[in-house]
């Protein structure tokens, strides 16, 4: 049996295709799925940068006198800028993706986008969550003024820092326990274990190997 002979077998197996629906199914789609999260992150990042930037500008003089008090807002501003940069890179990558283009090129771009997406998610999970304490600090400054940081006692800081760690630890435990049942926790598990990044790297490697003569 040769591959050429199998052409006939292959074709005859499609004599009565099961595809009954001829109408265009406009109702169900996963097409917008890829850009949804980066766009959401871009909006959140831009709003955060706007609020923080405004706050820092309004308190420029006070920041010069009490630079330590400006650290939480500067840290959030930095996080927001990184989030914006990551989401813009993802949106640019996905907009360059053309499914009507050659398969090798489209699949390489898609795999590179996925690697970028995983890195962005890891950044949120591994950086933003553990430093949670700076968020309530800046919220307090926005509500009660720049001096709020000075009024916060050590117990409040420790409690909030512990809360951030607890939430992070809780997510890790829940992901391990419910990873099999919940797609969300399975995703968290994959992110923490690095499975998704490995999958993305493998896809890129597979395409590179395919391109080699």
């Amino acid at each position, binding site marked *: *049996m*040769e*591959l050429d*002979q*199998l*052409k006939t*077998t*292959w*074709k005859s*197996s*499609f004599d009565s*295709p*099961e*595809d009954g*629906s*001829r*109408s*265009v*199914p*406009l109702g*169900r*789609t*996963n*097409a917008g799925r890829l850009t949804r999260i980066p766009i959401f992150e871009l909006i959140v990042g831009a709003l955060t940068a706007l609020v923080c930037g405004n706050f820092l500008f309004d308190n420029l003089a006070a920041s010069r006198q009490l630079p330590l008090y400006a650290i939480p807002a500067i840290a959030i501003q930095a996080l927001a800028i990184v989030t914006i940069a990551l989401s813009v890179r993802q949106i640019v990558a996905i907009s360059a993706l053309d*499914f*009507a*283009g*050659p*398969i*090798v*090129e*489209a*699949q390489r771009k*898609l795999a590179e986008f996925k690697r970028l997406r995983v890195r962005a998610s890891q950044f949120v999970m591994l950086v933003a969550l553990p430093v949670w304490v700076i968020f309530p600090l800046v919220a307090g400054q926005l509500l009660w003024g720049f001096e709020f940081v000075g009024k916060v006692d050590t117990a409040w800081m420790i409690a909030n820092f512990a809360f951030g760690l607890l939430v992070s630890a809780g997510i890790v435990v829940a992901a391990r326990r419910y*990873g*099999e049942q919940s*797609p969300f926790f*399975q995703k968290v598990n*994959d992110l923490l274990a690095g*499975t*998704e990044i490995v*999958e993305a790297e493998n*896809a890129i490697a*597979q*395409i590179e190997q*395919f*391109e080699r*003569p």
Partner: protein
Amino acid sequence: MMNTTRKAMALRQERFEALLSSHSGIVFKVAQTYCRQPDDRQDLIQEIKVQLWRAFASYDEKRAFSTWMYRIALNTAISWTRRISLRRRHSVDLAEVGERAFFPEPTEELQTLYRLIDELDPMNRAVLLLYLEDLSHAEIGEILGITANHVATKISRLKQRLRQEIAEPNTPWN
């Protein structure tokens, strides 16, 4: 103005449905190559059609519809396969379930062909499908984005792989 837009949209949809109908075998064959579990396959067929419809606005009528369709269908199927395999890693072996569910009594030849397909990575599956569809090396190269010579090499390797599959079924191939 509204009426003209609606009319143009209806005409476009009509044109698309006619083209899709005359080339519907492509969608089905691509879906069959990447998934043989009936429910999942229907989902994949649906997703391919949605992607085709979404891309139809930018379809250049001067180019072959089948080439355009193969590219979108294969790109959708390959991405779908990668997504599904990651999502289902913890639950079931898709290829295994699919094979049993769809072919109650496949012929020996078909069994061999599907064993070969199941062992291939998504990119080489695309080469095999296009080859089985009797496309020329140049056409396959155009769809995939590689040279015709490169396609010839890939097909020669697939033939070698098939011979090995017949000689020693289920042997992992390097």
